[in-house]
């Protein structure tokens, strides 16, 4: 449907050009703006590349199954993304109602950690390894 280079390849070319040919000439606020643009492009590239990887969704649904049972997970929606969203809506109500008060760092923690790590693997993978905060931090 799309010509070559594809979406990710075009963005990758844009990112390399920005980093290698434009960013070195910038300083101060403009360099900061440039770094933010690079960060945004890198995130989008990671998201595009993850589109065909169904493993992360399956792992989150498995953790939900540990908490709510396989049947409830299956009936939560027609596809993985929809199921996760519906199950998270359910989860936040249960958390607020105190369903996990007895064991806050038990199975619910494993599920929360998995989801947090998956979002970070797209937005800032460095944070997972080095707990390194991304640009920007609001000044």
């Amino acid at each position, binding site marked *: 449907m799309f010509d070559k280079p594809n979406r990710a390849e075009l963005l990758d070319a844009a990112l390399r050009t920005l980093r290698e040919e434009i960013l070195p000439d910038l300083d101060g606020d403009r360099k900061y703006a440039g770094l933010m643009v690079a960060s945004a492009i890198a995130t989008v590239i990671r998201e595009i590349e993850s589109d065909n990887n169904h493993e992360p969704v399956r792992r989150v649904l498995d953790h939900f199954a540990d908490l709510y049972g396989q049947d409830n997970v299956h009936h939560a929606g027609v596809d993985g993304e929809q199921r996760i969203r519906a199950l998270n809506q359910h*989860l936040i109500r249960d958390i607020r109602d105190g369903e996990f*008060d007895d064991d806050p760092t038990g199975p619910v923690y494993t599920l929360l950690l998995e989801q947090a790590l998956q979002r970070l693997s797209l937005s*800032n993978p460095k944070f997972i390894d080095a707990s390194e*905060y991304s640009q920007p*931090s609001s*000044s």
Partner: protein
Amino acid sequence: MIEAHRAALRDWLAARAGAQGCVVHFMEKLSGGAIQENWLLRVEMQGGAMPGPRELVIRTDSPSSVVQSLGREQEFALLEVAHGAGMTVPEPLYLDSEGAVIGKPFYVMRRVTGTTNPRDLTRDTMLDYRRDLLTHDIGREIARLHTVVPPHPDLDFLGPPPENPARQRAESFLEQLDGLSDPLPVLEWGTRWLRRNAPESERVTLCHGDYRTGNIMIDDARVTGILDWEFASWSDPMEDIGWLCARCWRFGMDAREAGGLGPRAELYRGYETEAGHLLDWSKVAYWEVMATVRWAIIAHYQGLRHVSGAEFSMELALTGRKAAEMELDVLTQIRAIEEGD
């Protein structure tokens, strides 16, 4: 926008200062400040309360503002109280609460020199010779503010002091989470933990509410002014300490636990020096969790401000995505506390 009101501003300044005349030599919007706008003015007054050349700063609202933010009139009152308590702040001079001069409320303060830029302040080796003393001073500064206790005749707008500041703050998160369209289970879980573990407060004092690197003006490794008062409230003084020390406000310089600027022990020592007695710091870990959940919720709202079209900003857009980093910190911090019990 403010430039269009230059003549009205000049005449108003002269009248307030009791000057025979005032010339505005220069005005420029200062960078930073996602919620408010700051304008630098170089003026020259003839006679009156502050004759001669002066550098002033005008503070007013930015195009879109955020939840829970105090108005300019209230911020002005807070600056006056903080100044009176001996805290290093830009001296507040004049207030127009009506918006009659430039079309929206604003106030004028003396300019303080230096930088608030967290990236520079946490990394500049020129500060290294004085980082311990600087951090000590930052402890002393906030201790001065925390001498202000309710009730205070000029701070009625802050409302009555909360019986349990931690529980009240955590419960305010519920409404904020309900205002976000996406379910955020980590923050819901963190908020639940904060509500269930809310400590009793030994004292309730005036708290800055955003006391962190980025709001502390520093010049040559010395504090020149504590800025950005729009989140002040009656609270537990440990809330200000937790906010400053939370990992998400160290700007990547984790080892310097006081805001990425210097050692935590110096902050505590400076505070105790000013307070004149030792304090129990054991609740700061709780308040650091509070800080991380709070900043994560704000980050989600900042992302929405961009997405909603209220304000275009690359920084706001990325801040929305940054919330995931704070969420992992919430999980890590609470587990550490639970396992330490």
